[in-house]
């Protein structure tokens, strides 16, 4: 910021080392994915894209990427619909009970996913949802709800309640008010929540390990198996693809926010 005091040396050092600490483990993947060797290692003689070629030429990897994508899309739709309706409902009624409901909605974030996964395993067995596309979508969709509830609630907190009064005073029914006034105003919040829910499903592993085995084989699951079975650098290449895709989504989110603000 112009005109403000610049931070001291030690504060700058602390800030930079924190940033490095956060991104180094991710950055190390980049050279590894470009290695010219046949095992997980840093490049020896030259950089090579051969592992990216392997991944993109392998039907198994492509199938997993596609399956992960479809599951993420479907579970994001589920999270967005449920989370948005819940947030709007709580906002409109706004009582002590709705505060409790909103807190309950955050449970999937708070409970360790391994505990959640064991629970799902117990219930999905009798329901015949194990190793099913629908089962994974439900699991990811439900655990993605908190992200949407949080972002939509935040957007609603900034929503001027007089706009709703104005709409209703001019004769708009509840559903007209929702469609034409409330939803357009909180769309950026819904969009952000959707992106987080998508990323959540896109890189979720623990639940998939429990509730899927053969038919449903998502990308994080295949990476996991790849690491366990051999140390093929293709995994680093996949990880890079995963990171780039996630980064793309976050940049998209930033872009949408900025567009809303100007």
């Amino acid at each position, binding site marked *: 910021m112009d005109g403000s005091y610049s931070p001291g040396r030690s504060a700058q050092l602390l800030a930079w080392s924190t940033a490095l600490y956060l991104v180094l483990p991710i950055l190390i993947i980049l050279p590894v994915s470009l290695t010219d060797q046949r095992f997980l290692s840093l490049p020896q003689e030259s950089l090579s894209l051969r592992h990216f070629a392997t991944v993109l030429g392998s039907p198994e990897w492509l199938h997993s990427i596609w399956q992960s994508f479809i599951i993420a899309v479907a579970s994001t739709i589920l999270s967005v619909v449920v989370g948005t309706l819940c947030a709007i409902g709580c906002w409109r009624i706004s009582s002590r009970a709705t505060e409790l409901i909103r807190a309950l909605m955050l449970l999937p974030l708070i409970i360790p996913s391994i505990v959640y996964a064991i629970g799902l395993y117990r219930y999905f067995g009798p329901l015949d949802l194990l190793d099913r596309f629908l089962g994974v979508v439900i699991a990811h969709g439900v655990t993605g709800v908190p992200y949407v509830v949080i972002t939509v609630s935040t957007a609603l907190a900034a929503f*001027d309640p*007089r*706009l709703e*009064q*104005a*709409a*209703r*005073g*001019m*004769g*708009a*029914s509840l559903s*007209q008010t929702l469609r*034409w*006034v409330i939803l*357009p*105003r909180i769309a950026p919040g819904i969009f952000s929540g959707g992106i987080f829910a998508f990323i959540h499903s896109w890189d979720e592993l623990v639940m998939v390990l429990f509730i899927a085995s053969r038919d449903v084989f998502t990308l994080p699951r295949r990476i996991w198996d790849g690491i366990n079975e051999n140390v093929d650098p293709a995994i680093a290449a996949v990880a890079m693809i995963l990171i780039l895709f996630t980064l793309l989504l976050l940049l998209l989110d930033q872009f949408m926010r900025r567009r809303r603000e100007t």
Partner: protein
Amino acid sequence: MSEAAGHALQIRGLTKRYGDFTAVDSVSLDIERGEFLTLLGPSGSGKTTILMAVAGFVLPNEGSILLDGNDITALPPERRNFGMVFQGYALFPHMSVAENVAFPLRVRGLSRAARDEKVRAALDLVQLSSFAERLPRQLSGGQQQRVALARALVFDPALLLLDEPLSALDKKLRAELQEELKSLHRRVGRTFINVTHDQEEALSLSDRIAILNHGRLIQNGPAAFLYENPRTRFVADFLGKSNFIQANVSRREDHHVILRVGDTELRQHAMAIPGSTETVLLSLRPERIRLLKPGEGAENEVEAHIRSWSYLGSGFSIVAGLPGIGDIRVNAPANHAHEALRDGAPIRLGWDADAAKPVQEDA
């Protein structure tokens, strides 16, 4: 816009409580067809709560609201067909000016062609036709206010409700928009109910003012009548400025009552002072007091001295000390020789026997 006659509204014994707090205390008020009524009061007086009850956003605990004789107390806001201009305007930020104005028509399912025509007429009415495609945030405060007016009038509402419509604007713009609002009221011939805490706005806009305090209706009537005949100390003090003099009835002569304050005798028209009264509280407007020239007389004459004075451009505001009465504010015209205005200088003040009005002490 069609020339439908305005509608009449009756408020009967309206009471609204929030827990132990009574926001509105059995207020009854009749608003006539085509009238411009202002609910005036300080913050917390219940004026906005009454407006919100009329709009349908607040359900009263007791009492009823009738539109042309039909009870609408329990009707939800979207079925009342009232136009409303909110404090801060509440324009939809994601819609253009034209879309904002078209909104009430859209919810009524009008065709696009019918909508466009009415929107154009409404924007013409507030002289904003060339701004139709702008977003609200690209407009000035005054322009936004006019968009809100167009939006509230475009669907031929039965009533127009205005919640502090001018409070967000600076003083000069406020005066301009007061004029516009007044002429708009004349042109559309509809019933307007306005809420404000600004007494100047109330005086200049309204056919009739209802003054509220602590949730109660204190007095209502035409602006000039209220200003000249305040019923209570609160009304006299809130609507314009006033001096208050507590006096004892000394004796009665033909048409006058002679009052005594300390050693001073005051002459007051006997009207409005009942025979049995012993003490009176008088409200005396600063502009009804004259600075007397040497030799000039008046029905009431008092000796005083200047405690302080200030120049206002259009005149002088003087605080004069009266022995036995206290400090009194006097407005003197600018043509007064102001060399004589020195702190501590002796002056003579005079006023007519009908200048002061007896008022009740507030309950």
